[in-house]
């Protein structure tokens, strides 16, 4: 069964077409990373799932129900960490979680949940004094109330320090291990790489790719970088290398050359260098940085 199904979803704000016939399927139990640059339509998509905004056309189903007509039923089984939210300044962390418990009709105890997100010590403090990271943890705690079947996290790691991001990842993984579907958005591929089963990339309101990270790498192809250590770099080395077929960028850093190229021309590149009288002391291959992979999908031609 699909936890999230979007079919031909269109949404415009004035002249701006935020979603242009978006189709998306997220399977039950998977961790799905929803990626895209800022303004690509990530939050609009999440807001449509939660019935915060209504699409102009297309169908949106969450946990097998219509996102609009059965929105409350959807949200009863969904934990949400929204984007651009604010806390209630005068209520304590515990009162926030208690409010989530009351709203969901759950019988959880606030304390263990606050402990899970690392806010146990701040349970009795008013949320008005919380940092961005703590507010983010608090909203996550509220999302976890009632053991949801689906977690929707909009840019969850914004405002979290590396430690917080790691804890978030652990929570996401342990929820997923219990069968919870996790859908989360990010504009940084590196954040989703470690946890996601699949990744969807949105660009200008359309899904441009859905695959595993490895699958994305394969599709982009030629995405590896050859790193060559030499004794000295002749002036025309970069120019000579670039003139070969299948070689993209060449950067020189001291006696290190970084060459982006197709896999099958690596040896040609090394031979070309040796032909220039260069002594190659070492060479290795790096996988394409994730940012490049991401850029390949989100920055290409119109």
């Amino acid at each position: 069964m699909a936890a999230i199904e979007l079919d031909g979803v269109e949404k415009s704000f004035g002249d701006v077409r935020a979603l242009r016939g978006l189709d998306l399927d997220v399977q039950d139990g998977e961790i799905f990373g929803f990626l895209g640059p800022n303004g690509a339509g990530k939050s609009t998509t999440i807001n449509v799932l939660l019935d915060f905004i209504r699409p102009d056309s297309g169908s949106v189903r969450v946990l097998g129900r219509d996102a609009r007509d059965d929105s409350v039923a959807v949200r009863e089984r969904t934990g949400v960490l929204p984007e651009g939210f604010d806390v209630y300044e005068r209520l304590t962390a515990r009162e926030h979680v208690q409010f989530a418990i009351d709203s969901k009709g759950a019988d959880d105890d606030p304390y263990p949940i606050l402990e899970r997100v690392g806010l146990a010590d701040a349970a009795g403090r008013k949320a008005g004094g919380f940092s961005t990271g703590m507010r983010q943890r608090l909203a996550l705690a509220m999302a976890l109330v009632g053991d949801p079947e689906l977690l929707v996290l909009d840019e969850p790691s914004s405002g979290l320090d590396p430690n917080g991001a790691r804890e978030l990842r652990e929570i996401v993984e342990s929820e997923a291990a219990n069968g919870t579907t996790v859908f989360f958005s990010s504009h940084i591929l590196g954040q989703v790489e470690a946890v996601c089963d699949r990744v969807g990339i949105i660009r200008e309101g359309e899904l441009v790719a859905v695959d595993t990270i490895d699958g994305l790498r394969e599709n982009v192809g030629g995405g590896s970088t050859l790193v060559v250590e030499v004794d000295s770099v002749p002036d025309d080395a970069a120019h000579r290398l670039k003139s070969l077929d299948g070689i993209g960028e060449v950067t020189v850093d001291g006696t290190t050359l970084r060459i982006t190229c197709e896999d099958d021309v690596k040896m040609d590149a090394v031979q070309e260098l040796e032909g220039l009288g260069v002594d190659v002391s070492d060479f290795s291959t790096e996988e394409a940085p994730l940012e490049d992979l991401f850029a390949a999908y989100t920055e290409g031609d119109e």
Partner: protein
Amino acid sequence: MSWQAVAEKDFRDAIRSRLLIVLTLLFTLFSAGAAYLVTEINPPQQAAFTGEVTTVLLITGLVSATAVFIPIVSIAVAYRSLAGERDSGSLKLLLSLPNSRLDVLIGKFVGRSGVVAVALFIGFAVGIVVTASLADAFSPLEYVVFVGISMLFAFVFIAITVGVSAFTSSTARAAYGAFGLFVVFQFLWSSLAQGIAYVINGFSFEGIEEGDAVFELFQVLTILDPTAAYEQGTLWVVRRLDESGELANANSELAFYLQDWFGFIVMALWIVLPLAIGYTRFNSSDL
């Protein structure tokens, strides 16, 4: 149904912000001060005839003051209820939970009403002591009934303000809107009613007489003003309770919508209608 959770959270927030304490003090000062003013400084004219200030006369004098004071307090308490949460983004937290938009609207209305009701009740309970010591013939029942109707009147303006607050995404617009409506009800309504009668009568006041259609319309329009409804409703109850018959009801032969009790129907309408209109808009808008 999670409107209770929303209402409870809202009420708790009001306690935390000291809003409840401030309001209670305000109502205490107001009820004690107004009672003193009415009994000692500017007693109703009837008291000059009979020589004693009864609870009924006191209430008659108080109503015109509460008719201004209660709306202002209610607007101040409620104008941020929804627009403020939308402004700050806490509405997203609220609606991420399984609360429907109706739950949120009703919860807000109930929560804010609760705050005003508690403050008004305590404040006027203190006022009752002052009143009892000043009025010559004090009737707790009449006073309690007056407090109850005043509470209903507060709910009217909270409903209107929550409705306005649901209508707009800006706190400032919610404040202007609610206060603008108050000004209309308080100061412009009768002029508007006259204006409408004037226009319908062919741009003239000539020939309008008691009993004809235009005059009836004018009277209906007049009583549709929530403030007028509050004053009429209070008077109706007070007259019923007043066994001495000083303010005997002389208009029992009038049409039902011109009876004083019709004020209660009007107040109920002014609770339901603004909430319904605000909800319709709130429910159909993107956050």
